[in-house]
């Protein structure tokens, strides 16, 4: 171990953690104002309970020595996770770095069920999902599981994070069902600047996600970092051209989306491909997601914030193209189709299908079991009023007019004028 590697991985871990609040802003800006707090909380809440359950159980299931399918309980409760070296860094730092991935992955799913899923059902779902789906899939690829043995390449989580979360999102959108206004009324983003702020911060944090996945501060981190700059830049350029040719206007929501798609596409490949290949991947990766977004809105599938189009198709495209562009001269090992190893493309496609099948099936089971115990969604009037007020007892944008202070002892406050204080200022503190 040396302190340069440790220093970079400390920073990278903090960068990845920032991506979850960034995702909250990205998603929060895209929903209606009556649901923005709920939508942002769906991401924020993952920072709490998911991180705890990861440390106590999830990490062990993913990374403790086990069999090809799952780890073991050897590291449960962080037993044996200390200062000793794990590769180039202390074991506990590796656990923390992986924890930030475990936090953002279930939060990604929320984009498919915003504006109608009950908050406590969502919370129960992501806790079960991170243990039952994320941990085993992470084990398959990064914990020495069977996908690693098979030779599947996934540098920073194209299949583990993005295909996995997007498949769960697809299933969740179908099981929870569409919003009542879906297909009847236009539901517009209430704060596009939030979405752009979120996309910008996601990009910033993604340097930790991809370059940190080198797990050291060496040249591989520099390669992944550079590719994380170039691929989304190219996706953004191509996306903007599509926008200009199709509608004559380069849209802001489109730009924010393009950045995320480009980042997703390069994620599985970041440390394996040349910078020029990253540009090619960013360009190619724009195509399926761009047209899937347009098509999805015409279907009955209320994947409200297009998790499937952005993360599912982007992740699958990236995973397969990793098998095309992986280059031994840059990766220091794995090579793909262009480098004379055509079989890698099939391995990549197989890994995507396996993750898709398991994530889809397991997510379906988790949601159906939960549905036996609690309603998954809010209905009728409550949906009209919005989830901020009904699920959280707060509003995002209140002038505070007519807000009457409820004092502790006075139950029937509305009756005495002397007991009533009308707040003059904004409602929030």
């Amino acid at each position: 171990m040396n302190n340069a590697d440790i220093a970079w991985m400390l920073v990278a871990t903090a960068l990845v953690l920032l991506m979850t609040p960034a995702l909250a802003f990205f998603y929060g800006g895209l929903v209606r104002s009556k649901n923005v707090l709920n939508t942002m909380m769906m991401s924020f809440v993952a920072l709490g309970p998911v991180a705890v359950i990861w440390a106590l159980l999830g990490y062990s299931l993913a990374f403790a020595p086990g069999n090809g399918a799952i780890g073991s309980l050897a590291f449960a409760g962080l037993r044996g996770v200390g200062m000793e070296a794990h590769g180039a860094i202390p074991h506990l730092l590796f656990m923390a770095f992986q924890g930030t991935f475990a936090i953002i992955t279930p939060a990604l799913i929320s984009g498919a069920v915003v504006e109608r899923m009950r908050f406590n059902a969502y919370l129960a779902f992501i806790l079960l999902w991170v243990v039952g789906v994320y941990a085993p899939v992470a084990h398959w690829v990064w914990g020495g599981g069977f996908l690693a043995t098979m030779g599947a390449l996934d540098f920073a989580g194209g299949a583990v994070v993005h295909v996995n979360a997007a498949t769960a999102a697809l299933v969740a959108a179908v099981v929870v069902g569409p919003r009542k206004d879906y297909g009847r009324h236009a539901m517009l983003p209430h704060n596009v600047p939030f979405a752009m702020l979120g996309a910008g911060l996601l990009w910033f944090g993604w340097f930790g996600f991809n370059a940190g996945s080198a797990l050291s501060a060496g040249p591989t981190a520099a390669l992944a970092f550079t590719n994380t700059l170039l691929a989304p830049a190219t996706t953004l350029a191509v996306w903007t051209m599509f926008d200009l040719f199709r509608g004559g206007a380069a849209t802001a929501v489109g730009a924010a989306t393009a950045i995320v798609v480009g980042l997703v596409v390069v994620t599985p490949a970041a440390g394996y491909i040349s910078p020029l290949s990253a540009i090619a991947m960013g360009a190619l990766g724009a195509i399926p997601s761009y047209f899937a977004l347009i098509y999805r809105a015409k279907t009955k599938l209320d994947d409200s914030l297009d998790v499937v189009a952005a993360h599912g198709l982007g992740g699958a495209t990236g995973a397969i193209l990793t098998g095309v562009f992986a280059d031994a001269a840059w990766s220091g090992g794995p090579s793909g189709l262009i480098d004379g190893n055509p079989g890698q493309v099939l391995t990549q496609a197989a890994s995507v299908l396996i993750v898709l099948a398991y994530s889809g099936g397991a997510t379906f089971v988790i949601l159906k079991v939960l549905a036996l115990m609690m309603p998954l969604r809010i209905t009728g009037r409550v949906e009209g009023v919005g989830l901020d007020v009904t699920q959280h007892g707060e509003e995002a944008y209140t002038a505070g007019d007519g807000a009457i202070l409820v004092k502790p002892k006075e139950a029937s406050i509305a009756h005495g004028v002397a007991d009533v204080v009308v707040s003059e200022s904004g409602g929030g503190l």
Partner: protein
Amino acid sequence: MKLIVAIIRPEQLSDVLEALFHADVRGVTISRVQGHGGEIEHVENYRGTSVKMALAEKVRLEIGVSNHFVQPTIDAILSAARTGEVGDGKILVLPIEKIYRIRTGEQDQDAVTPVHSDS
């Protein structure tokens, strides 16, 4: 000629506009307002502070219509804005003394008759 003023729930606005459209009522002005109509106040919490929201968000529609459009307009709003719970709002029908269309100077009935093509 009547001025129809309706105070409705904001979440019913899309439904009401749709119903008005189907009733061929064009020309509507809306404003976001706050008010109290006897409904139960909901309680919100901000850190240690609990507040009862005595004023609810409402939408106010103002529609100037000619006489034979009064009833269709009212019917459209009644059916689309109703949820059956306290707080659905009110419809007020007021007499109008005079109407001018600013663009042409047309008056009264002519001024509230929709123009379908400006070609």
